[in-house]
């Protein structure tokens, strides 16, 4: 695992956000964000509701555009549109809070559609790999069911398999377990911890401290659109540097 770097290291990082600002109308949702993510690094983003965590996540695959600053992926600025943008998105996986599996497709079709239609992989090969991935996340038996027939935990694992099927260079997770019943949270986190162990680059918006402690290299604490603190998970949860973070932690720890 790479250490969080200094400025020169950041040049080699997979994703670099440099002075990024974004507004929704008058609302300044991202304020001067500077953040680099190394290959193989797992960054957990944590912070109060409305702090801009989702927005930050979504700017990385350009589901949201930014108003100033630059974001580079593998050293190149994010393409603004067209084929370049589609390719970037196919290389950056995304897992949503509400799963967003394609409701009219089977689980296996959900996992193979991207590889077949975006990557042009022959259906037979995509299916073989899709089944392997479903096996890996533990839901091979559900391959031919529709999303609505699965539990939340199974759906989220299917969504992770769908992202993996594209062989992404990085996966963004936006609160992947917060729509789940408590007893299903761990099965999803286990899959994510395994992924992290295999060296997948991940940006994970989550309040799951257990996950952050076990899998994250770095915790980024965001509030009011700013990165308030960056720290190692251990330090952050036991000995946060900023009052804003301490205050936030005291709230989520006592709830």
């Amino acid at each position, binding site marked *: 695992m790479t250490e969080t770097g200094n400025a020169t290291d950041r040049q080699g990082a997979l994703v670099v956000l440099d002075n990024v600002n974004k507004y929704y109308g008058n609302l300044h949702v991202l304020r001067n964000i500077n953040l680099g993510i190394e290959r193989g690094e797992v960054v957990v983003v944590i912070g109060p509701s409305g702090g801009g965590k989702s927005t930050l996540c979504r700017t990385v*695959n350009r*589901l949201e555009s930014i108003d100033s600053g630059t974001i580079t992926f593998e050293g190149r600025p994010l393409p603004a549109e067209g084929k370049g943008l*589609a*390719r*970037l*998105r*196919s*290389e*950056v*996986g*995304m897992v*949503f809070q*509400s*799963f*967003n*599996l*394609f*409701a*009219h497709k089977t689980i296996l079709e959900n996992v193979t*559609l*991207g590889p077949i*239609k*975006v990557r042009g992989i022959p259906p037979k090969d995509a299916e073989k790999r899709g089944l392997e991935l479903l096996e890996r996340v533990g839901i091979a038996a559900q391959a031919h069911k*529709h999303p609505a027939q699965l539990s939340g935990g199974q759906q989220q694992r299917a969504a992770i398999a*769908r992202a993996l099927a*594209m062989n992404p260079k990085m996966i963004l997770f936006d609160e992947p377990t917060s729509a789940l019943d408590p007893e299903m949270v761990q099965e999803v986190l286990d899959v994510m911890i395994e992924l992290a162990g295999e060296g997948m680059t991940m940006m994970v918006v989550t309040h799951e401290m257990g996950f952050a402690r076990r899998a994250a290299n770095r915790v980024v604490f965001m509030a009011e659109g700013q990165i308030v603190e960056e720290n190692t998970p251990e330090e952050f949860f036991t000995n946060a540097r900023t009052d804003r973070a301490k205050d936030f932690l005291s709230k989520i720890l006592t709830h």
Partner: protein
Amino acid sequence: MDELIKYAPDLLLSFLKNVQIAAVCAVLSLILGTILVSMRVSPTPVLRAAGTVYVNVVRNTPLTLILAFSALGLSDTLGLSFSQTPSTNGFWLVVLGLSAYTATFVCEALRSGINTVPLGQAEAARALGFTFVQSLRMIILPQAFRVVVAPLGSVMIAMMKNTTVAIAAGYLAESAFTMKDIFDDTGVSIPIFLGLIVAFMAVTLPIGFFTGWLAKRLAVT
């Protein structure tokens, strides 16, 4: 009753014209309606505007005027001609006008269907690298069609009945005009009225039953 028997072959032949027009219009209006709704939800402002203007103008114009425009404007003035045979030419002018009109209702039905598809579906498609057209074709429209099968059935039923104003485009071979023609000779005949109503219902009722059944079936999965 005698008149109905006497004129039954004429009426039947001309009623078949209504069915033919409706069959071709069903295909064309579904295609054109899908294109229109794609424009209306597209990220390109020019396409969106064009789709919106088309739908609002055509949907709010009386069908008889659209058919008259099809015959007088397109055919007579602009010289658009499908065939040397006047009745064949008239047939296609009716098909053109009626399809252009019905497509706006297809478009709006589909658009209400698209509005029921959660935003996350399109977002997930975009996040995988699908283009707008791919996501519309593979993810959004298939789900939208499922919810609007029954309303689309109503649109098709209305369209079938609308074939009876084909005279507005100068097309004289369909059944409502044939009926009036017969009445001019023999006077009004209730059995002929009823016969024609039964003929229309023989087509429209099954459309309603079929689309209703299909809607239920698709709703399960």
